[in-house]
């Protein structure tokens, strides 16, 4: 019998497993399941980007790079961020290439948090935020966002959640799993509060190119925010490059320097072929990105309309590629709904509670899949709802 569990640290042993894991285990064994549970683009990386990685290998570029990433990579990031988001970052001191936003956020937390520090973040949110904070021996403080606000962060709720000891605010707009965005007015109010309370802001903008309504605004571009914001971004969603595991952080030099220490001891550097593919994406990927965004928008319109037709109230997500329908009209909780739907009709949706307690009563449905599958899922969900008593 394996008794090695006694070696596992308390704060790791008590960390709950991701609610998504159990679902993955069931769905992966089902032959004809229709999955709306996929949190990554269904497009293959555009060929010109893949080709840049192939060319990198052909040229024998297989070495380590500067810990921060190649000069060329950082210069392209600097240009791209200035052009599309506003703030200008120095490639020498203010930009760090990472293994996706996941690593960027992890090393940021480890670089800035002392044990017992508090971190504000809005829920429902990406599954790793709170556990990553816990792993730093710090305390994660959720701020609830609600469907009536289209899951935008209400500055009043932020103020109410704040408590002494809060050091960092994590933002993610557009949001996984809700598609929530924050307009300029809301961000200005959030920025004002961050300045008032001297908060550092981590802004995960991985879905920013996939904004369907209005223009994306980065909080880093607002007055007084560049010096207290770490802008986190990557290539997985906009350029369909999840497997390349490549991202970056831009921020004030001292914070980036702290992150660099954690990065250089833990990771060394991002893979060079991924960095070279990313350079190609930054230089020439816009057309492919816009094509994919248009497809996501069309599928969003269909899936949201379908959920509402079926009586599962669903707001129109303003970004990302997830619909987040309210399933409370069925009388079930998120987990029961998702489990029964999977058992009876073999459709996989992720229970909203996997993204925090604020996701209760909702399920996440990714529309990063073909029309054919979304259509089939709609038919099966209709049959499932028809089979429920009292409907």
């Amino acid at each position, binding site marked *: 019998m394996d008794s090695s569990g006694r070696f596992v640290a308390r704060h790791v042993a008590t960390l709950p497993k991701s609610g998504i894991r159990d679902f993955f285990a069931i769905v992966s064994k089902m032959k004809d399941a229709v999955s709306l*549970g*996929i949190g990554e683009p269904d497009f293959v990386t555009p060929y010109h980007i893949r080709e840049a990685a192939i060319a990198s290998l052909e040229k024998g570029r297989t070495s380590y790079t500067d810990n921060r990433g190649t000069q060329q990579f950082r210069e392209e990031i600097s240009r791209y961020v200035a052009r599309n988001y506003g703030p200008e970052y120095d490639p020498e001191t203010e930009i760090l290439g990472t293994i996706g936003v996941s690593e960027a956020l992890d090393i940021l937390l480890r670089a800035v948090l002392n044990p017992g520090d508090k971190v504000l973040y809005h829920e429902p949110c990406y599954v790793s935020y709170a556990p990553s904070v816990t792993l730093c021996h710090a305390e994660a403080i959720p701020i609830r966002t609600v469907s009536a606000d289209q899951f935008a962060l209400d500055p009043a709720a932020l103020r109410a959640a704040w408590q002494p000891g809060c050091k960092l605010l994590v933002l993610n707009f557009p949001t996984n799993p809700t598609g929530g965005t924050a307009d300029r007015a809301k961000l200005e109010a959030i920025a004002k509060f961050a300045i008032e309370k001297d908060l550092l802001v981590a802004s995960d903008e991985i879905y920013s190119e996939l904004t369907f309504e209005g223009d994306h605004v980065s909080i880093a571009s607002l007055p007084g925010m560049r010096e207290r914001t770490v802008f986190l971004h990557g290539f997985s969603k906009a350029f369909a490059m999840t497997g390349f595991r490549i991202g970056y952080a831009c921020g004030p030099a001292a914070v980036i320097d702290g992150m660099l220490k954690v990065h250089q001891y833990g990771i060394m550097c991002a893979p060079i072929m991924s960095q070279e593919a990313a350079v190609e994406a930054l230089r020439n990927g816009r057309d492919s990105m816009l094509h994919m965004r248009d497809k996501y928008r069309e599928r969003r319109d269909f899936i949201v309309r379908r959920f509402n037709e079926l009586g599962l109230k669903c707001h129109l997500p303003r970004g990302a590629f997830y619909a987040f329908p309210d399933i409370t009209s069925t009388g079930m909780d998120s987990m029961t709904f998702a489990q029964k739907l999977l058992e009876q009709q073999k459709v996989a949706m992720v229970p909203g509670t996997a993204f925090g307690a604020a996701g209760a009563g909702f399920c996440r449905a990714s529309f990063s899949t073909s*029309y054919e599958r979304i259509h089939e899922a709609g038919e099966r969900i209709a049959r499932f709802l028809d089979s429920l008593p009292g409907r």
Partner: protein
Amino acid sequence: MNSVLKLILDGEALDTAQIGRILGLGAEAVDRELAALRQQGVLLGMRPVLNPGFESEHRVRAVIEIKVRTEGVGGFDAIAERISAFEQVESCYLMSGGYDLLVVVTADNLYKVAGFVHERLARIDGVQGTSTHFFLRAYKKDGFVVTADGAGRDRPSVSP
């Protein structure tokens, strides 16, 4: 672009009822739209795209480059229309460059293609010369990669 047409061109196998539901139209409205597109000559037809390896064991496909003389025979259009009328001809294009017409033909075997070239094409007034190339293997057809070996196969069915 017309929304029905756009969806069809995406290449997903959707019937008119599915297209109707996706676009928020009835199936009848989609049928009407398709009929109108046909009538306008926009939509010539719809065929499945088969993997050439499964089309038929004995079919062969060839591309024929044709040089033509246009004087006294009614110009390129007249010759091209005549050639296009043969049922063996899949497609026919007027080209720039070293030859004038590019014709794709299919037949049951190599000899039938050869027969088509010397008995039919070569006898058409205005055809000065032909150069025939047989297709050996398809790697991509009508936008579909034929040899794809499981792109996305390892993608997890549920992920955060």
